């Protein structure tokens, strides 16, 4: 195995790492992606919820604690494509208010950039990888931008049945933007609407990295090394620059890869783990951590689900796992009287048998079997995603236990603050009202443990080293050739799905990195 110095080594071949790999390889840079898991191909993506677990992490590199532990393994990735190999490809964006929460409400953080700094890149990503939707319809809630390159996806009765009851409840819906093909796009086929998106789309209708950025990166010469687990980022003696990474290869042999630039793109929990484990005498608290904020302000979304059984066949086996409709109507931070934070409403999604069973976790035995038969054609639901504010105590730290390479495990402690709990409860109450207006035969809110969705924070962006870990491009405030990408750099999370924004931020960061390459590496 050769380990010659490269221009950029990227830790993690998921969504954000793939964008950087594509941009930098096309710019003529020598790029190596080190990926801890396998290098998946489309032909590996079997249409089965059981077999689909292969593309998720095994084991527990991240220990979960707190009153509301993060549903980590269900959402994380393992292998090329990362979590975006099994993501739902919902592509809503943040709104202008998300970038200035501190200024407008005295809560959370401001971003060091505005919506207008990102909007160009939303449009660019949409053109690049393909987004289906109706931009004009969305513009009742956001500034105007380019039309999406494809029309909205087909809808089915499991989504359509909710439109009127949501409307009369004061929640108007519009077609949801998704990273899926409603028509053929750049040689990739249109979606078949069979609902297997979440175990990986093998036909390329869904914009996973394999058929978009990662594929482009490889064509441009980027190299991906699978089963390569990075354990430390290395620095020079003065601690002023990173020099490469230490990793264990597919034969569990320790290796060093030197690079002019190191990009951490291994998701919100692993990036802080690596920074903390790379401490030196010059960086005793870990790299880029003079603020003490590395690993802090971890955030996730609450999910308020309302389930309903109808007399009619709602075709719940049809569609995609992404949603058919969305609404920002309750997005203003003070929409709920007794709670603070944005809410993002969604309706219409395909269900698999696991979803049917999980919609009534209290049932077992003959009652469950009877319910499954009724739910098979008649169950559908709506979901409201709720914002959680950044809290210092929600954090990733190094645990005393170690992994097989001797690296301390990460420990992710997460507890929803009272605002998030109040928002979740308020959204469940709204959902019940909507279900009543829909005339459902039976309807119930999914109470119990508060579901967690997405994982953000831990390496937040800001204006300087005193209040954040990186700048708005993802560049470390303290070590200029150390960059970080992914949802971990979000200082607040909004309520909408984060992947479109992380693609846009990664595109923006990667172009900045390429443009300042000469000054950065000399």
């Amino acid at each position: 195995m050769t380990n010659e110095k490269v221009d950029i080594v990227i830790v993690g071949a998921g969504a954000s790492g793939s964008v950087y790999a594509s941009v930098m390889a096309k710019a003529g840079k020598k790029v190596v992606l080190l990926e801890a898991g396998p290098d998946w191909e489309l032909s590996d993506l079997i249409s089965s919820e059981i077999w689909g677990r292969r593309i998720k992490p095994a084991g527990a590199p991240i220990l979960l604690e707190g009153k509301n532990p993060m549903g980590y393994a269900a959402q994380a990735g393992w292998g090329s494509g990362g979590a975006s190999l099994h993501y739902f490809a919902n592509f809503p964006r943040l709104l202008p208010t998300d970038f200035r929460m501190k200024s407008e409400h005295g809560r959370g953080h401001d971003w060091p950039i505005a919506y207008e700094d990102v909007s160009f890149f939303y449009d660019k990503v949409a053109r690049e990888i393909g987004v289906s939707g109706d931009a004009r319809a969305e513009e009742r809630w956001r500034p105007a931008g380019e039309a999406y390159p494809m029309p909205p996806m087909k809808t089915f009765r499991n989504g359509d049945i909710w439109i009127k009851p949501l409307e009369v409840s004061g929640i108007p819906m519009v077609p949801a933007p998704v990273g899926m093909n409603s028509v053929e796009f750049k040689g990739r086929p249109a979606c078949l609407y069979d609902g297997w998106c979440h175990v990986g789309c093998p036909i390329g209708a869904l914009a996973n990295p394999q058929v978009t950025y990662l594929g482009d990166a490889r064509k441009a010469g980027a190299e991906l090394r699978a089963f390569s687990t990075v354990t430390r980022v290395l620095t020079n003696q003065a601690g002023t620059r990173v020099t490469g990474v230490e990793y264990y290869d597919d034969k569990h042999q320790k290796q060093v890869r030197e690079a002019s630039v190191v990009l951490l793109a291994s998701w919100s929990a692993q990036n802080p783990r690596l920074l903390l484990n790379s401490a030196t005498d010059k960086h005793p608290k870990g790299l880029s951590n003079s603020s003490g904020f590395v690993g802090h302000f971890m955030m996730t979304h609450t999910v308020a689900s309302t389930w309903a059984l109808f007399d009619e066949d709602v075709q719940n086996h049809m569609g995609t796992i992404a949603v058919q409709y969305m609404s920002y109507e309750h997005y203003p931070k003070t929409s709920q009287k007794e709670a603070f934070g944005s809410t993002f409403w969604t309706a219409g999604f395909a269900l698999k048998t696991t979803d049917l069973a999980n919609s009534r976790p209290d049932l077992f035995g003959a009652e469950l079997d009877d319910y499954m038969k009724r739910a098979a054609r008649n169950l559908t639901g709506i979901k409201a995603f709720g914002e959680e504010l950044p809290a210092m105590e929600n954090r990733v730290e190094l645990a005393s236990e170690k992994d097989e390479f001797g690296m301390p495990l990460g420990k992710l402690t997460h507890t929803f603050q009272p605002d998030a709990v109040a928002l979740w409860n308020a959204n469940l109450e709204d959902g019940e009202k909507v279900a009543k207006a829909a005339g459902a035969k039976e309807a119930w809110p999914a109470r119990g443990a508060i579901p967690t969705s997405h994982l953000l924070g831990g390496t937040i962006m800001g204006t300087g080293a005193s209040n954040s870990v990186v700048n708005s491009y993802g560049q470390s405030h303290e070590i200029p050739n150390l960059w970080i990408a992914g949802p971990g750099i979000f200082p607040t999370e909004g309520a909408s799905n984060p992947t479109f924004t992380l693609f846009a931020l990664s595109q923006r960061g990667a172009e900045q990195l390429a443009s300042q390459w000469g000054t950065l590496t000399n």
Partner: protein
Amino acid sequence: MASIGRRGFVKGATLGALAFSVGGAEVLMAPGEARARNVPFRLLDGHQGETLEALGETLVPKAREAGIAHYIDQQLSVPPQESLLQARIFNFRPPFAEFYRSTLLTIDDRSQKLFGKEFAQLAAKDQREFVDRMRQNKIEDWKGRPAALAYAVLRADAVDVVYGTMEGYEALGIPYMPHIAPEKRW
């Protein structure tokens, strides 16, 4: 995919069946078929298998026939990164076998305390009563991971083998519509 070193897994992933040991050779078959052919367990002992079948059947009718014990046993025998068990999604730390072994011990211990017999020997109505108490975390002196969590994981396993297969979809009248179908209807 770059090989991760187990022929049985890679073939199983392609063919959609699991690799069971029969007469010293690995044979690909669905768990229900393995049960019907009385394939020996790899890790479980007979009592553990019997208890898992009784639990599975209480949680989801037909889980015994679908081979829940053979499914869990085979999956516990492969490296965790190849495992298809729900324990993976519940973020359990490997080896997953520890959860099943300790949970089965606790279940028998508490079943003896509550009903005077091990779980597999209980009448169906008592098995149901026991599982319902598990679900609600209402079993005194339960040891190990919370009873409600054990209920959730075991229920999810039973849901997998009964409803998660192509046959399970067909029984519910749901079109499976695969892009890449697991062979042998699984």
